[in-house]
């Protein structure tokens, strides 16, 4: 028994319909695949980005906001941690090192972040070229910043996003330091005021696959000074980096702490979860986010699967109509001696071929859609993401395939039961 030539003939009979149905199935599969691949790429990319941020200590507030502003350099309004607590953390014996993080300014589209030279070196495993900054008006740029060593960069107050819509006073840093700092509304709109001196690029970081690749990193003293908060050192002391003086210590949006041991990490987190500060592991916050995101993704996946089943069902409806046009052909085959099983197999393989082709085409199509989306999101966020097909997507395609094959039994059974004599008329 060989139903394949009949399947081939049936497929060739309505090529446009076959192509249309196959494409519809492919698009339905691609939608599910793209959502799944995208969710994983986002999860893995964000986890990699937060990898070097062991513990974040900040003023009480939303941990998600703090995570977004510190790790992903997204502009959010955060309070400042008081200077005396900053000084206490900077000198905590359980920390291998502590890096102050200050933000709120920008250079073109790049966020300007204030920290220490040691943290820059730690974050990028050494520099790709040049030297770390050694004075207040120097900067190290991220691997993707369009600037060369030796260039002078103009720093503006506020974030690039804020500058775009002209609302520079939405600056998160200002939101926290309003009590120390007397910008007027007019100054807030002046994107290059006198306090923001130009900086000279001394080095370039290696790629980190994080939004820091798009950042201009300056000494934390630069940010403090630009925001008229001092430098953390005695007046006239021009050195940058630790140690800072307790009585001169300005407030900070966040500190990144590298604990000595796991036990120390939990100790630090517990110690700085007070009324005046909060401490959290970024990984923990990400897991909570993933849980929400994963839940949403699961709902999306079920909705997508439901949509796919609807598409396949609709296609099978169309298929029944198309096959009704071929009823006479199958009746003739029965008259020539084809068993009902032969007709059943021919129709099932005919419909199954379209479903299989759609699923096989949908996999790369979904991956390609996800790769494009990943690239767009990577460019927008700086979080390096990779779109890869995994077992989840293969299982998803296999599930649809199995459902499609099961639904293909309907037209097969319909023609299997069709009257030969009626079909011959």
């Amino acid at each position, binding site marked *: *028994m*060989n*139903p394949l*030539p*009949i399947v*081939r*003939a*049936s497929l*060739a*009979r309505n090529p446009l319909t076959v192509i249309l149905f196959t494409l519809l199935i492919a698009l339905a599969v691609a939608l599910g695949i793209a959502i799944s691949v995208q969710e994983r790429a986002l999860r893995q990319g964000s986890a990699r980005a937060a990898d070097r941020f062991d513990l974040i200590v900040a003023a009480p507030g939303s941990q998600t906001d703090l995570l977004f502003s510190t790790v992903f350099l997204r502009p959010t309004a955060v309070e400042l941690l008081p200077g005396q607590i900053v000084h206490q953390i900077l000198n905590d014996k359980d920390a291998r090192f502590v890096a102050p993080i200050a933000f709120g300014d920008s250079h073109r589209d790049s966020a300007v972040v204030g920290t220490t030279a040691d943290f820059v070196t730690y974050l990028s495993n050494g520099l790709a070229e040049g030297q770390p900054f050694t004075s207040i008006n120097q900067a190290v740029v991220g691997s993707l910043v369009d600037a060369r060593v030796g260039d002078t960069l103009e720093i503006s107050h506020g974030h690039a996003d804020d500058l775009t819509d002209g609302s520079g006073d939405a600056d998160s840093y200002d939101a926290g330091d309003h009590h120390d700092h007397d910008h007027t509304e007019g100054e807030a709109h002046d994107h290059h005021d006198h306090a923001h001196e130009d900086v000279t690029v001394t080095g370039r970081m290696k790629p980190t696959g994080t939004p820091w690749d798009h950042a201009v990193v300056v000494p934390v003293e630069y940010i403090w000074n630009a925001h008229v908060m001092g430098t953390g050192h005695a007046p006239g002391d021009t050195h940058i980096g630790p140690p800072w003086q307790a009585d001169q210590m300005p407030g900070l949006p966040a500190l990144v702490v590298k604990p000595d041991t796991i036990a120390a990490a939990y100790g630090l987190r517990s110690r700085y979860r007070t009324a005046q500060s909060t401490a959290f592991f970024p990984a923990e916050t990400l897991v909570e986010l993933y849980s929400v995101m994963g839940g949403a993704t699961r709902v999306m996946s079920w909705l997508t699967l439901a949509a796919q089943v609807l598409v396949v069902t609709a296609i099978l409806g169309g298929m029944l109509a198309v096959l009704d046009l071929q009823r*006479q*052909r199958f009746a*003739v*085959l*029965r*008259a*020539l*001696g*084809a*068993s*009902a099983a*032969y007709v059943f197999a021919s129709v099932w393989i005919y419909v199954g071929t379209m479903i299989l082709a759609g699923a096989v085409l949908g996999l790369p199509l979904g991956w390609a859609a996800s790769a494009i989306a990943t690239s767009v999101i990577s460019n927008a966020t700086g979080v390096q993401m990779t779109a890869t097909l995994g077992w989840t997507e293969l299982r998803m395609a296999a599930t649809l395939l199995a459902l499609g094959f099961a639904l293909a039994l309907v037209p097969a059974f319909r023609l299997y039961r069709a009257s*030969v*004599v009626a079909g*011959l008329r």
Partner: protein
Amino acid sequence: MSAHLTLSDLRHDLGGEALFSLPALDLRPGQLTVLTGPSGSGKTTLLHLLAGLMTPTAGRVDWDGIDLARLPEVARDRWRRKRAGLVFQDFHLIPELSPLENVLVPAWLGAFSASRKRGRAQELLARFGVPERARVAVLSRGEQQRVALARALLMEPAVIFADEPTASLDSASGAAVAQTLLAMARTEGRSVIAASHDPALIALADRRLRLERGKPVEVA
């Protein structure tokens, strides 16, 4: 290759009324039998009953001792596949397949290798003067019916059923097809049963059965 048909007490009802009844009929192999009668007299239905495409309301359709009326559908399919060839008024070829592939269709239906039948298919097409590889749609109607005849003969059936085999053809093509059917019966010893209005085919027949008011009448 021969097949002997015996009908006894055959009755077929349609919509609760008797379409026809045949108390007895005996058709020997090697004969061309033509069923005639006006439209709606039941010629095609009788042909379908004899081919096992449907079962009668009552009676026996006995081919060499095998009563098709009592066989389950699967067994009737198998009987047709092995013992019967069918020819239709509108040929019912598959336009997406070549003439050669169309002839090979019966070989794909059963548990035998189509490749072993390829030679015979080529031989039949050569005998009927039809190219092996062409688009079926570009063949003349006469050629298309000859492809259908070759398809019916591929499995070397003992019985050929032909439903109005010349009705769609011009007179020259119709005459050629009629001669072929006659040769299948007289030369090759097959039982050939055709339903037809065609006087040329009727004239060639060994036996003529006219269906009138539900009763077949043997016509001299």
